[in-house]
């Protein structure tokens, strides 16, 4: 057929990817005809990637919905073990980082290299802080024996002294390593490879702010333990004196007594026997624990979903950190400007999605009433 409607492919007889003689800027891939085409392709690609990410998380949200619909009482009880203050703090941290990323895209459009760079470093620091807070939350959960279903063995007699001691050292090393890496990067950035220098500096910033996050989270957690006695400990001691929650706390106390037995049928199965699993050795002076019913749903199943959701989300945060580090390196090299910032925008969009997932996770897990 023969309407002479031509494709715009430029004839090229040399196999060179960046053929001389036609004005392909360096950042324009050889198989695109124009910067506009490349940008629209990149944007569509990122959005599709985000679509598959949404579906990836959708499985977890569906599991949450099914379990919460079938066992609302389990969720209502279990969420008291989570600390909404920490969750809220993390929400604010991530929102701030999202703002910074969006600001960074704007800076790229205006060719404001300094703002572009520092917004991204700020984002990385926020990500590090988020992970620090998450680490503290996980430490407390696991220390109290609040594992997922297969290992759920809450320890009502838990003493927080050891965990505080461990965290002090963690913070110390985070700070030392983080600040040292930042210093190294700061020196390196004036060398021949400024991009690498900024990457080192940012890695240091992530580690140091993770340390800061641990300090803050631990402070909040310790304060709450001091002031309120964490509810389930209170419940286990039979001192359910929490405003308006006596009934629930008492119910928990009974639950807990019933569940103070680790499920060891599966302990040997495929997993290394974890020492924390032994936590339930310190049997409470509560009434003799009833044997756990095979297949029943208890707070452990809430923690299964909690760990699955927050764990997969944390993996996405780590992925985001790596992606933003790559962006920081390229910013340091001076790759981006008003004509080309597709990667900045793409990674920014991904980061917004990670933030958005957390915006959903926070109320679903921490604010059940």
């Amino acid at each position: 057929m023969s309407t002479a409607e031509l494709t715009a492919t430029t004839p090229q007889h040399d196999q060179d990817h960046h053929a001389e003689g036609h004005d392909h800027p360096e950042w324009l891939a050889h198989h695109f005809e124009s910067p506009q085409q490349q940008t629209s392709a990149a944007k569509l690609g990122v959005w599709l990637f985000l679509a598959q990410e949404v579906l990836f998380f959708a499985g977890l949200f569906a599991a949450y919905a099914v379990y919460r619909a079938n066992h609302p009482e389990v969720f209502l009880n279990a969420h008291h073990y989570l600390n909404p203050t920490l969750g809220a703090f993390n929400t604010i941290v991530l929102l701030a980082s999202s703002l910074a990323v969006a600001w960074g895209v704007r800076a790229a459009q205006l060719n404001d290299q300094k703002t572009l760079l520092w917004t991204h470093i700020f984002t990385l620091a926020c990500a590090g802080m988020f992970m620090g807070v998450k680490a503290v939350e996980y430490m407390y959960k696991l220390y109290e024996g609040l594992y997922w279903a297969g290992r759920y063995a809450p320890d009502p007699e838990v003493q927080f002294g050891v965990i505080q001691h461990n965290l002090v050292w963690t913070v110390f090393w985070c700070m030392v390593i983080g600040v040292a890496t930042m210093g190294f990067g700061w020196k390196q950035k004036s060398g021949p490879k400024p991009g690498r220098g900024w990457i080192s500096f940012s890695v240091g910033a992530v580690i140091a702010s993770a340390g800061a996050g641990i300090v803050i989270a631990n402070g909040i957690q310790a304060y709450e333990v001091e002031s309120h006695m964490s509810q389930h400990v209170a419940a286990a001691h039979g001192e359910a004196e929490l405003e308006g929650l006596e009934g629930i706390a008492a119910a928990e106390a009974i639950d807990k007594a019933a569940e103070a037995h680790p499920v060891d049928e599966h302990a040997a199965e495929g997993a290394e026997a974890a020492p924390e699993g032994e936590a339930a050795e310190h049997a409470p002076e509560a009434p003799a624990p009833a044997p756990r019913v095979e297949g029943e749903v208890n707070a452990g199943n809430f923690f299964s979903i909690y760990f699955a959701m927050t764990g997969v989300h944390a993996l996405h945060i780590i992925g985001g950190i790596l992606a933003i580090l790559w962006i920081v390196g390229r910013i340091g090299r001076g790759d981006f400007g008003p004509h080309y910032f597709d990667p900045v925008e793409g990674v920014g969009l991904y980061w917004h999605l990670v933030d958005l997932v957390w915006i959903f996770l926070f109320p679903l897990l921490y604010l059940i009433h």
Partner: protein
Amino acid sequence: MIAHTSKPLVSGETGRRVEIPEGPSYLTGGGLMSWAFTLDHKRIGVMYLCGILGFFLIGGLLAILIRLELWNPAADLLAFGQGADATARAEIAKNNFNQVFTLHGAIMVFLFIIPSIPAALGNFVVPIMVGAKDVAFPRLNLASFHLYFVGACFFIAALLTTGLDTGWTFYTPYSVTTTGPVVLATMGVFILGFSSIFTGLNFIVTINTMRPRGMTWFRMPLFLWSIYATSIIQVLATPVLAITLLLLMTERMLGIGIFDSARGGDPVLFQHFFWFYSHPAVYIMILPAMGVISEVIPTFSRKHIFGYRFIAYSSIAIALIGFLVWGHHMFTSGQSALATAIFSFLTFAVAIPSAIKVFNWLATMYKGSIHFNTPMCYAISFMALFTIGGLTGLPLGALATDIHLHDTYFVVAHFHYVMMGGTLISFLAALFYWWPKLFGRMYNERFGQLSAIIVFIGFNLTFFTQFILGVKGMPRRYASYEGSDAFPVTPELLETFTTLHRISTVGALILGAGLFIAAGTLIASLWYGRKAPANPWGAATLEWKCCSPPTQQNFEVNPIMGPPYVYDDIKYDPAIDGYYEVVPDRTTKPMQDPV
């Protein structure tokens, strides 16, 4: 610029003959490393093709083992000389049988059918069809091939460690408690899933942003429509399987207790999640196949495709409705009655767009000038087998009949008619159709046609008998059909079972022979085949407007973009035994598809 010379026109009309310049083929140059790290979509497609065909061979041999085991009612063949005690041997044979059908299913689904047409041939054809130099993200394309390779390695590891006996569906709670390498296999599928997602993402972006001017949505070849629909499913459904398998792995390794009923988990939730991907996955398998048929039928009927828009929209409709029918795999799993009724209704709804396609292909052939080349033989075979496969889906989608037919050989026959009679036959049609473009050689047409006929006969012998077996109550996944307390078999029934199983086994061997003839025909062409012209079939889509095999850049000169199914100006030249395009001496011709 249109290159043209003063070569004579054959059929006497006036006009210019479009010459297609030859260039260095994409196959030339570079060693192993330049292949392994190439960004060229054609090389990636060829590497996919090698991997996929290798796994097809493994999966096929496993299928032959299944059929041979079922030759006799007792479980005997797969004991591999383990001692003399009959009971112990039967036990071993049954265990091995479980592993053989599991690996057959998993390898065929995840390593062969899903990537077959999209990843291997799609990678090769899609960019050329849109007149582009490459897919939108060549590096991502290479990454997806590397992921395929890594996922395949996990599968090979699972195959070599043996003991994977969950069935390809990995249903909990059995998959949590069995001792086989479930984590290895699911990790493999997890990785392959991302390979599939990236391929789909690439195709959507390529088709959306890289079409040449003049190629509107409704001037695209229908293969691109079906690949587009497929890619939507790949991007949106595969991540659900990914998270499901991730949870299954944590279930096995840590005991997370979401799917394992012993820990308060919900096994039916696993089935919902699994089929939320794996039902759309069967549309990932069949839609590209339908796209191939939509290319082959008009080309060999020398006639414009009938009902272009209906075929295009039905691809999208199948993709969308396909997302809403996963529950029909679980009619007997204790869903609510309302849910089963809704899923049943939606399942029937999928039949409509599928039938639209079949009728449009038939209408395309009507009064066409039909050439029975090998791809066309396979395409006609596809239409017959796919129709049987599709129609037998309806009794399975209807609630009352499914209760009887669920988990019998009727199901096995149904999905083999669609997956093999549909996708595999279409894959072969596509392979023969694009082979001259892929490797620049013509195969022996007679042997090709012979292979199509033998495959058709062998296939029907193998699987039509299984419909009868299923209706008679033969359950799937049984190594022996001697009968037991749980599965009583009368002597007459045993005789029927045995006869039908033996016919099926003979059919499988015939089918295997047909496939080997097809493989031999294609491989022999690489050495003995005539050099292929740029357009051996007289097709009008863009991939036939570059030389065979294409150069690295695909097009040395700009191809002429026209409607993909108009053959008026494509003329036969006996000198090259191929077709060429004429730009006629007329000033205007409205660029419109005949409606």
